[in-house]
């Protein structure tokens, strides 16, 4: 009798497989291929993909880039209004540089993410619906450009979700999305 503690007897490879196990193999196999197909397909037809151009950039150089952007942006009471379609965010201990920012609903922006010191986590959600949240990793040494279009006006809160040091929990910033 087949026991897992004994070497199998005879020609075990050719032993017939139980019918229900065979069916299960079929179901599990189809499901595996199916979810692979969906994930790959979604990169083509889906609207939510963590995909964007990445550039190598020294942390100091990125910081300068953000500064230039800030200088070009219009300062208002509610935050910076970006001069063009690019929005820069600089993650640093323990602050989101260049936030708050004021954006138009329905307009596509290129969100540039990068860090000045250590790794941080860009975790964003609208104030009204906390379950609508996403998280992206932010590196020192890389500038990641992710397009985003915010359809619903409101305040979006950014907190840091990668441990970056003692003040990690206080890292907070906002995006204010306004009706165009």
């Amino acid at each position, binding site marked *: *009798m*087949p*026991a*897992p*503690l004994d*070497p199998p007897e005879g020609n075990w*490879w050719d032993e*017939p*497989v139980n*019918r*229900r*196990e065979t069916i*299960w*193999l079929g179901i*599990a*196999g189809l*499901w*595996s*291929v199916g*979810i*692979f197909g*969906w*994930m790959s397909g979604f*990169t083509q037809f889906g*609207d*939510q993909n*963590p*995909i*964007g*151009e*990445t550039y190598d950039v020294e942390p100091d150089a990125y910081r300068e880039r953000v500064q230039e952007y800030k200088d070009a942006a219009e300062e208002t009471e509610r935050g910076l209004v970006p001069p063009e379609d690019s929005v820069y965010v600089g993650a640093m201990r323990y602050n989101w540089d260049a936030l708050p920012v004021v954006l138009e609903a329905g307009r596509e922006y290129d969100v540039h993410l990068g860090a000045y*010191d250590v*790794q941080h*986590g860009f*975790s964003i959600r609208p104030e009204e619906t906390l*379950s*609508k949240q*996403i*998280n*992206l*990793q932010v*590196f*020192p*040494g*890389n500038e990641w450009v*992710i*397009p*985003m*279009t915010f*359809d619903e006006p409101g305040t979006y*809160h950014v*907190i840091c*979700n990668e*441990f970056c040091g*003692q003040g*990690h*929990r*206080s890292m*907070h910033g*906002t995006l204010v999305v306004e009706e165009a």
Partner: protein
Amino acid sequence: MLGTLRALFGNEYDAEGYRSCSVTGLDVHRSVEEHVKLFGVTAVVALVVGGSFAFTVATTRWELIGLLEPGDFYTHLSLHAWNLLIFWMVFMEIAVLYVGGPMVLGRRLPLTALAKAGWAVMVAGAVGVNLSIWFTEAPEQAPLLTAYVPLPVSPWFYATAIVFLLGATVAALPFFAAVWKEKRGAATKTLPLVTFGAFVTGVIAVEAILGGIAAFAYALVWRVGLIESVEVGIYRQLYWIVGHGTQQINLLAMVTVWYFLTHVVGGAVVVSEKVSRSAFILYLFFINLGAAHHLLVDPGMSTGWRVWNTSYAFYGAAFASMIHAFAIPAGIEAGRRQRGLGGGLFGWLTSAPWRNPVFSSVVFSVILFGFLGGITGVVMGQMQVNMTWHNTLATVGHFHATVALGTTLTFMGLTLFVVKTMFRREFVSDRLASLVPYAYAGTMSVATLMLMYAGILYGVPRRTAEVVRNIPGTDFSLAAASPLFALFGVFALLAILSGILFVVATVGSLLFGADNSGGDLTDLHAEGGLTPDGGTSVHAVELRGTFVLCLVFMAAFVAAYVLNWYLLTQLWSIGA
């Protein structure tokens, strides 16, 4: 004290050093048994240390109590992670290798000096990691599990972590030597399934360890100033070879123990050698690709690379796990049906030895690992869905389902088994021992689910001392999630209490349990003997119960999958 120790490590052996185990039917050599005990006891010590920090970590995240200041919290969280995920599990896994290799093969443990040296180096490394974390002072930072550069983590931490990994490699060598000796001159002889599983576990362990040494060495040379700068992306890739690799070791060791224990205490048979072994082979080839699922929302990785790797090449490894998900319950069902135990659809299951804590631990582990850990792992491992899980408490919920429920429960069952069959001690209280798996599985499941909800529905981040009730410097907070934390807190405390009960049952039995070496341990024996004699041949048994259970599992899988994708598509448009 010494007398107790000697009594615990002694047993009666014949002139050759062997004794016959009445539960497993194995001829056990003294050298194997002693080392299994050594590594097992050490693992339990690590469990106690890491488990103590579960208390401080959980009561800090439950902000109503808010036990620790942020500075201390990260230190405690690091110690929690390293003692439980690494030391509790890896010491236990070396013991699993020795059981699965030489013990199952009925051989002595070769190279015992290496086994002891490996153990000593591992202990030195583990103590070193604990000290380096405990004595970390600003501006250096607690490493947490990952020690991500360029956070200034103590160089001592990287160095001692490497020492531990080297020790584990040395300790694994006697296992490989035993398999090699078995195969020498008999290359065509097939290894028993459990040994085969242990062997694949060992290979994957070596791969993981090499990656770990590379990652920590890279960070170390940077910290001591031998190189000027360090690339975040490179460190993350190297780190996750071990960070994820150790999880694969946990998985494979656990599955191997599933086959072992369901057989010896549940009378399970192997329904198909071909299918179960193929599943291990799939692991061998594909499971390591999965390390990429930690890098799904990182900059710089191409889409194709992420999609291909996170799917373990068309879900080869997830498919393998679904094979075991069928094969394990099917083994129990077939074995019991062949013996005529329990009729109907689920009679084989309801009539199973549920009072035997070894059996119940393993069965709960199978169910909870699959339903809570496995499903969430595949779902959150889809590149796009990962955006909603990454670094939230939902992730913490996922891996507590896999390691704190799945693997830990299995290892608890194994520990109880070792107490009785190798240390030859009766439990101080059978009722207490029987209660442990129920208490731990039940309470930890709720705590785990609450973590998942807090992460997915409220976006509560992991690795932070506060933010639910208060984010310093702003009015905004995630306070809506507070009720979940009340549930989490209560059940986390109950889970910790259950863990204490486990330690009492184990250590108490070792110290005060009656010596059972005269007896036959009939209460552990599989009903109707270790293997059924006669009965229908395995492939012809009607595996109706298992099939239905698997369909229920698939339904839950599909539901979780659809729900997560639905939530994702409700978001604003993101990405190119």
